């Protein structure tokens, strides 16, 4: 009998590849519903103030228009009623803006009206006819000015143990009195997620109290909760479908005004409403990586031991939600510094709310920390890799406990070898290839290996296929594929016999796809569900299958699609045959971390990125000629999709390092970067060969699969690796991203 190949770790093709290459994969604006109508949002043209007058007459009268909804005529949304909280206090992150609820304008391009028409062209035209007049108030969109009023996030004010609270070990700001020290400021501009699929929703009230939305979301359950609450409906009455999500990178982790608007619109016109944002609106209405100012002070001994680090940061948020992220987390645990201070603040500006963008705060923080490491190494005339090795931590210096696993040294070794680190010269500007200056740099990344709770159901069908269901989503990493591999191995079935269904809030619950946690969480739940299903099959076999008449449950073995009994080769029953007898082969399990590994160990994924760059001596253009990304991410479920994710994260890091910046003209409080012509993201020609190396050692403290997560560490550390390489090539240290030619020429 042929033994099935092991699927975990294999470079299996994606299970949904066929749908994606044929155009059959349906995204949220691609469902056909009878009576479909189209929604187009009108945005404010001021950043702060009140709508004094809004004239919708022309729009209402335009051909095909079904409704024009503003704060003057929007239906009462039950969830928008005042909560009784002090309205002068900002709510903490999570609640969407209450659209069309009042006359207040909180940021530029805030939606102030929704036009619904029978065709897209007509809706778009009528939207131009809506005229608003404002009572303008003085806005503040400038971070340098806003930072003067930066404050400790409310969560940290309330809870001194919050990761956003000030952190201290050893002596405060000890670097200041040291002989060998650096002190530098670093800036990350506002960056936009810009997934290729613009945010879109199709909202359909199937009955007055039953809502279905086809929505771009990273979490069907969270989205269902938000909109059930908004309409005061039982969660069971709201269905969220997100079978395919055209990228998100974090911006679908929050419910946004356009989603509320489409649902309101569908309610008003009594027809399904399809609404896709424009690329301009993607800048203003669905979050972004916040502009962040940072300062790092660092001191070291002459032989390269860090004695102190102080890392401060101020990130941007909106006036109506407090957004925070873990900008300083990496600094507290990455290097062995006896004295360490972190201070995190946020500044509220008249802008939309930020949201975590790939790598989130850690990627922002790593730019400052890893640039500072490079600066310190240069001051000490030390190789930056050697400097990092001298400050390597064998246990978590923040929490004083062992790492669950840490193979970062192995990553250093593998990466240095692959990039050809020995070619690097200590002094910048020493390597040249024609008109191009060549340099090498490195940057380290880390992100918590998070595991949450998830439910997964597994059912054996009469045709021998096992169907697994979970409400989780796949924004691109290949979740369905990884889950299929885990299920195949666990069940002893070929992958063709597994069907993993996701992206529907009607399926067993899971958290959102974010924070590199999906495989850690859902993957383990899949394994657990498959184990439970096997158990169920043994039970069925022992209870009634004639071949196992005398067998005990424990004696029934399952492998390669067959149940067998001990050494008796004659007793061999295909799984599906069990369905010929009474009893359903269906299980639904909840899987979550148990035991106290989370308290005993610090669990992180680690990465290091090595960059080779070329900087044109005259024009200042930068080309990343080679990247090597090495990851200690635990068990790799699929070599092909995991490597793809690493390469993609590296490309995101190139964008962050070299070209991405969203710019506001503060006079108007309005973005002047409005589309892909002025907000550049990397294209094919910017993407070098990226060599990926996985340590591929399981971390069994995280889960039984041993996975730690890839998505974030793929990006964290890439931007500083490139910035450091540019310094090595040119001698120019650019501390404000992106490093565009104007900063080097």
């Amino acid at each position: 009998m042929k033994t099935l190949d092991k699927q975990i770790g294999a470079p299996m093709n994606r299970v949904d590849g066929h749908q994606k290459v044929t155009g059959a994969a349906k995204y949220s604006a691609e469902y056909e519903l009878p009576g479909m109508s189209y929604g187009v949002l009108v945005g404010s043209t001021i950043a702060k103030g009140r709508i004094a007058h809004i004239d919708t007459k022309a729009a209402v009268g335009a051909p095909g228009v079904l409704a024009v909804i503003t704060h003057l005529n929007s239906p009462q949304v039950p969830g928008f009623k005042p909560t009784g909280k002090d309205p002068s206090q900002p709510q903490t992150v999570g609640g969407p803006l209450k659209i069309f609820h009042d006359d207040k304008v909180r940021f530029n391009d805030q939606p102030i009206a929704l036009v619904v028409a029978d065709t897209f062209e007509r809706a778009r035209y009528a939207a131009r006819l809506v005229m608003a007049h404002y009572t303008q108030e003085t806005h503040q969109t400038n971070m340098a000015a806003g930072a003067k009023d930066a404050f400790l996030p409310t969560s940290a004010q309330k809870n001194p143990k919050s990761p956003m609270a000030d952190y201290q070990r050893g002596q405060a700001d000890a670097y200041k009195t040291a002989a060998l020290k650096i002190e530098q400021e670093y800036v990350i501009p506002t960056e936009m997620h810009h997934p290729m699929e613009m945010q879109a929703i199709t909202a359909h009230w199937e009955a007055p109290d039953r809502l279905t939305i086809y929505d771009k979301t990273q979490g069907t359950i969270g989205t269902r909760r938000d909109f059930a609450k908004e309409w005061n409906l039982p969660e069971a009455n709201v269905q969220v479908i997100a079978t395919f999500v055209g990228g998100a990178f974090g911006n679908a982790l929050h419910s946004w005004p356009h989603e509320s608007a489409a649902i309101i619109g569908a309610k008003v016109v009594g027809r399904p409403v399809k609404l896709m944002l424009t690329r301009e609106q993607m800048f203003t209405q669905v979050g972004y990586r916040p502009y962040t100012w940072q300062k790092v002070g660092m001191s070291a001994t002459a032989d390269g031991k860090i004695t102190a680090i102080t890392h401060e940061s101020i990130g941007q948020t909106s006036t109506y939600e407090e957004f925070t992220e873990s900008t300083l987390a990496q600094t507290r645990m990455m290097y062995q510094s006896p004295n360490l201070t972190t201070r995190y603040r946020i500044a509220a500006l008249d802008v939309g709310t930020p949201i975590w963008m790939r790598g989130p705060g850690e990627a922002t923080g790593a730019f400052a920390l890893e640039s500072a490491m490079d600066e310190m190494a240069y001051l000490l005339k030390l190789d930056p890799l050697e400097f990092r090795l001298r400050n390597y931590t064998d246990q978590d210096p923040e929490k004083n406990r062992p790492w669950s696993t840490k193979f970062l040294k192995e990553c250093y070794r593998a990466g240095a070898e692959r990039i050809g680190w020995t070619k690097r010269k200590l002094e910048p500007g020493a390597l040249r290839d024609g008109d191009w200056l060549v340099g090498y740099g490195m940057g380290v990344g880390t992100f918590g290996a998070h595991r949450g709770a998830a439910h997964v159901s597994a059912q054996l069908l009469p045709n021998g296929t096992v169907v697994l269901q979970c409400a989780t989503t796949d924004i691109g990493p290949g979740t369905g594929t990884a889950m299929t591999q885990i299920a195949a191995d666990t069940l002893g079935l070929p992958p063709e016999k597994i069907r993993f269904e996701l992206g529907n809030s009607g399926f067993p619950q899971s958290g959102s796809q974010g924070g590199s946690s999906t495989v850690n969480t859902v993957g383990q739940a899949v394994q657990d569900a498959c184990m439970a299903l096997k158990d169920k099959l043994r039970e069925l076999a022992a209870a009634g299958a004639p071949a196992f008449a005398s067998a005990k449950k424990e004696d029934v073995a399952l492998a390669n699609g067959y149940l067998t009994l001990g050494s008796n080769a004659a007793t061999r029953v295909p799984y599906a045959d069990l369905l010929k007898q009474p009893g359903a082969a269906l299980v639904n399990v909840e899987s979550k971390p148990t035991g106290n590994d989370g308290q005993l160990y610090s669990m992180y994924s680690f990465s290091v990125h090595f960059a080779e760059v070329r900087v044109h001596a005259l024009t200042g253009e930068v080309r990343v000629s080679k990247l090597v990304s090495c990851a200690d991410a635990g068990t790799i479920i699929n070599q092909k999709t995991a490597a793809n994710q690493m390469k993609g994260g590296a490309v995101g890091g190139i964008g962050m390092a070299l070209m991405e910046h969203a710019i506001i003209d503060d006079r108007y409080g309005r973005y002047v970067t409005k589309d892909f012509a002025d907000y550049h993201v990397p294209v094919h020609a910017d993407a070098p060969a990226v060599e990926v190396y996985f340590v591929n050692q399981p971390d069994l403290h995280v889960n039984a699969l041993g996975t730690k997560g890839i998505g974030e560490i793929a990006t964290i550390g890439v931007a500083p690796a490139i910035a450091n390489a540019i310094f090595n090539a040119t001698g120019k240290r650019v501390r404000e991203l992106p490093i565009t030619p104007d900063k080097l020429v």
Partner: protein
Amino acid sequence: MNSEPDVPANHDENRRTFLKQSSLLTALALVPGPVVSAAAAKLDERVADAFEKIPLSLKVNGVKHKLSVEPRATLLDLLREQLHLTGTKKGCDYGQCGACTVHVDGQRVNACLSFAVMHDGQEITTIEGLADGDKLHPMQEAFVKHDGFQCGYCTPGQIMSAVACVREGHAGSEGEIREYMSGNICRCGAYANIVAAIQDVKQGGQKV
């Protein structure tokens, strides 16, 4: 006949009257003022519907379509919203991402930047028309094999562009492929795998 001999049909006086009103409406819309003419509200929707549209013949993926469309409908919106061929994606709507790439008479173009009526009588191929029945096109096969995508949203555009890239003779080297595929953005960053897929097809020598 007047100086516009090849005007599509339905070009009569009622239509002119409507368009005059429509012009007025637009002109007013651009004047930031408290009042947009009430005349705008008087438009009879049914009349508008009848006179806004003009006939259009298109062959899409080998199928002939006789359509009646508003001139302002782009080829992209026509494909997605009227023909329900949603494989062609809207990624920016301004010709800045390539997600809407289709072939018009064999040449790759951005469907978002042309009006459908401009393609009267032309032949359009979308991602849905690339495979030969159930048999995937070699480029589609190669994208699956090399994992030339993640979220899949830019993929149809990448594949349509990749096929054209090979046909045009611009797949000679990795560098040339990168340059000639730069009109197709992949935010997931699957670029290296896409290039590998194209090289594979090119080197395989299959007919594309």
